[in-house]
């Protein structure tokens, strides 16, 4: 990370409580624009909560910050327009087909519906475009969620355990997403206890007990 790069994520002493318990505690973190960061830690270390805070799915109980230059609390809509959070909950509709799910996402994000076809092809789901997502395996659903992300080209991509439930072919799709994001200057945060390929990662940030404990730099 160089000092000339504008911070894509800047958190200052962010804490999130659930029923009085801190899932994320006093986290201060800065991620540069275009950086790919591996957020690592055990289950329950606060990775998912931190991603959800950055994505504005939840609000900080204390603290604040900015994402892509927009305030975390007051400019949520601007952040949401430029961010995509991919988690194990794929946010798909089981009664809609793969293509219909993507076209619905196009309506929400003001995208051309014709992007759905190429996106499905890219994740290897073009042959099941007319099949309902409810009959898909978890791995296929993950791929479909990836296709949704590929259509949008958001400035910030937040991946929560992206390799879970994926077969080897689908893992390649995730890696390709990381490569494309790097080439396109997109910022990526990968929360995973499984290491992404080292050459695709710029930096590791380790979490434990809701705190960031080692914001280490990866050797260039």
């Amino acid at each position, binding site marked *: 990370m160089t000092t000339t790069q504008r911070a894509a994520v800047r958190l200052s002493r962010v804490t999130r409580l659930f029923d009085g318990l801190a899932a994320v505690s006093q986290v201060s973190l800065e991620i540069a624009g275009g950086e790919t960061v591996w957020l690592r830690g055990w289950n329950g270390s606060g990775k998912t909560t931190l991603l959800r805070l950055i994505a504005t*799915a939840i609000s900080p109980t204390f603290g604040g910050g900015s994402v892509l230059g927009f305030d975390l609390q007051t400019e949520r809509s601007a952040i949401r327009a430029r961010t995509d959070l991919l988690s194990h909950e794929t946010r*798909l*509709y089981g*009664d*809609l087909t793969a293509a*219909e799910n993507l076209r*619905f996402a196009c309506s*929400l*994000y003001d995208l051309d519906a014709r992007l759905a076809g190429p996106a499905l092809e890219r994740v290897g789901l073009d042959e099941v475009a007319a099949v309902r997502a409810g009959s898909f395996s978890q791995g296929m659903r993950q791929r479909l969620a990836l296709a949704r992300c590929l259509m949008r080209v958001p400035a910030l991509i937040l991946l929560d355990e992206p390799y879970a439930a994926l077969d080897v072919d689908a893992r390649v799709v995730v890696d390709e997403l990381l490569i494309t994001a790097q080439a396109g200057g997109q910022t990526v945060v990968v929360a995973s206890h499984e290491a992404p390929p080292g050459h695709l990662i710029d930096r590791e940030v380790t979490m434990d007990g809701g705190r960031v404990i080692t914001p280490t730099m990866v050797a260039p």
Partner: protein
Amino acid sequence: MSLRVAQAIVAKDLRTEVRSRSAVSTVLPFAATMLLAFGFALGPDRLLLARTAPALLWLAALFASVELCHRSYQHEAANDALEGLLLSPVDKGAVYLGKAAAAFVQLIALLVVTAGIVIVLFGLPVGPAPVLLLLTAVLGIAGLSTLGSLLGLLAVRSRTRQAALPVLVLPLVSPVIIAATKATAGLTHGATAGIGGWLGLLVAFDAAFLAAGYIVFGHLLED
């Protein structure tokens, strides 16, 4: 953009209902059974049957609205699709309008079928003012769908989920059910005096629910 979002929500909800048939498979059997049970309980007195029919019709519509709105948000809660709506950069009021419009279309369809059963079983006359009767149906269903679509979101986000929806809906929707029942009874039996008042009440509640839903929905959707 907002209109396009609302249209997309309507299309998605209707497509989901056509494919899952959840409302048809639960609401219609319930309505038919309830009407049959009341028919037998009230006996062969055609006059009594016709007098009670409007209330039974709107009770069936009320049950249908609670069940339908609950299922609509269950679909959203599955796979956390609701969070997808939250994180999309759209006017959340447009999402609400889409949900309410989809519920309206489905409830109107269910009301038509239920009304058919009531007309056949209870001998409910259409009356001298079918246009006003249609207007009553539209306004009554609008009240049920606008309120149900707002409170369905509250219910799905509460810990008690399904149990919360009737508790929230029933007290608030009572004026709509009373006004719709009174207007339907008056219109079907030719006693049109005072109908304007009941229809005015329906318009007032519909407008209040719609405005409240449009304004509040986004805030309820947020964490």
